[in-house]
């Protein structure tokens, strides 16, 4: 007879743990070498405090009451707690704050294959540095981290969280229809955007085509030209923001590791401007994400521009294993 543990949670035995720790210490070293200091926050927090950061992110939170009836929540990511920490505890320190973390977060997802309810993240937060320099610094560190853990084929997708928000405002789409389209875009359900009636009925065919076209643009610098050709104020703003960041990446010599992607949308609401996703060709899942969150610190009373990323350690580990397997296969053939 065995004793069950909840789905989506795992025991880790020495062989795997050794490899996970190797990833973590590699990342710890590179983060520290770039002047980032490690922080730790509690896994449990007050629900209303985390919700103040981003209510949507807390949709998937595990919640419970403590002995005095306070509603507590397990953190669903590390960025919101660290924004709280930076707002409350680092008021006297010089800007920018360079912080990193390695920790576990918790989400109440249905535990399908590979979907973890408890997962490990390693990432950085650069607080008090504006776009595009701050964004470029974070991407540079992300690429260096990927190289250090052996994922030198990994690619960073770079998009703009405000593009569609502003574009929809420009097209006069508001309220529920707006939320619904952003939802569909985040899921990349182009058929719904092209054809769906109902909430989207206010949208003309040309406008739908424009949205579908824009959200399919991904690649190198030519993407920005193609987007500009489509036109509009929102597109112009987003592409100039992306172009500035991209120019920095070119200077730093890492532009070939970054893919511009106008269709990139993350499901977390606190992102503003640049957003990031990390892919490795050997795995079908996203292995990390991040972006700018210039409004998040303000919600904790200390408005500061900020950017960061998180690598999902378990998935980085899978990617390492797959890359090694593919390399062996290539070597054998």
């Amino acid at each position, binding site marked *: 007879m065995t004793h069950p543990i909840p789905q989506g949670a795992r025991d880790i035995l020495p062989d795997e743990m050794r490899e996970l720790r190797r990833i973590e210490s590699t990342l710890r070293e590179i983060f520290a070498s770039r002047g980032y200091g490690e922080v730790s926050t509690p896994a449990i927090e007050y629900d209303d405090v985390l919700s103040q950061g981003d209510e949507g992110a807390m949709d998937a939170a595990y919640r419970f009451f403590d002995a005095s009836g306070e509603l507590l929540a397990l953190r669903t990511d590390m960025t919101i707690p660290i924004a709280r920490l930076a707002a409350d505890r680092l008021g006297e320190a010089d800007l920018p704050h360079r912080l990193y973390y390695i920790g576990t977060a918790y989400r109440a997802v*249905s535990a399908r294959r590979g979907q973890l309810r408890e997962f490990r993240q390693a990432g950085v937060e650069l607080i008090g540095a504006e776009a595009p320099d701050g964004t470029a610094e974070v991407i540079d560190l992300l690429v260096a981290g990927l190289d250090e853990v052996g994922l030198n084929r990994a690619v960073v997708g770079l998009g703009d969280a405000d593009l569609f928000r502003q574009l929809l405002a420009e097209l006069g789409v508001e309220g529920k229809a707006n939320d619904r389209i952003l939802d569909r875009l985040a899921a990349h359900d*182009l058929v719904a955007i*092209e054809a769906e009636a109902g909430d989207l009925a206010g949208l003309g065919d040309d406008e739908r085509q424009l949205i579908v076209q824009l959200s399919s643009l991904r690649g190198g610098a030519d993407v920005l030209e193609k987007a500009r050709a489509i036109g509009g104020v929102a597109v112009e703003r987003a592409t100039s923001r992306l172009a500035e960041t991209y120019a920095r990446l070119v200077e730093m010599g890492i532009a070939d590791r970054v893919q511009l992607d106008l269709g990139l949308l993350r499901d977390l609401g606190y992102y503003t401007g640049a957003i990031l996703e990390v*892919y490795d060709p050997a795995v*079908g899942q996203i292995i990390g994400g991040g972006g700018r969150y210039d409004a998040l610190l303000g919600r904790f009373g200390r408005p500061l521009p900020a950017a960061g990323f998180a690598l999902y350690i378990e998935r980085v580990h899978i990617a390492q294993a797959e890359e090694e397997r593919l390399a062996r296969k290539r070597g054998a053939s």
Partner: protein
Amino acid sequence: MRGVDIAHRRGEGEQMRLAIPRGALFEGCLDLLDGAGFDTSELRSSSRSLIFDLGEVSIVTMRPSDVPTYVEAGAADLGITGKDVLDELSDLAVYELADLGFGRCRMVLAAITGDDSLERSARRLGFMRIATKYRRIAERYFESTGRQVEVIEVKGSVELAPLVGLADGIVDLVATGRTMRENGLEEREQISVCTARLIANRVAHKLRVDEIDGMVERLREASS
């Protein structure tokens, strides 16, 4: 060792993999591939093989409801399956790129012709008993229309359930509605219209841009 190396994850520079469903949509998929300039003769003649090499793309065949699972995991870069499957498995994270138009069916609520047990159960018991293979679609539909139901999931011929008193009605996919009529059932409400859709793995969509976009374009053109 032909066709057994179903690597569950993909590497760059490898052949693109397209998952297509055996069953009702299979013929439509082959016609579409023909129209897009692929040679599907081997697919048409061999019913046992699972993997077919068409040169620039390899085709893997499977149950319709497995297509999104393979695509989400990246075991296939692209897939074709019905909207009914995607609606039922809506928590799978795949990109839906195009409506391919063929395989048009409707998801409907049906009950015994002339019988009022749906209404009677709703009024007297407070809920209707609905048999279906599409639990989530049924639950979502009745919730969105403010009605309480007890969903009974069955795997085989759903039409049987109301005939022998397992359920007051069924939620099922109909093409012509003939099977339903032959079993003395009638359509009461249309829930949605379902056609074949082209889906993509999220990472493949990002990393194999030209191949994916090229394939999407070819299939789109062939479908219009």
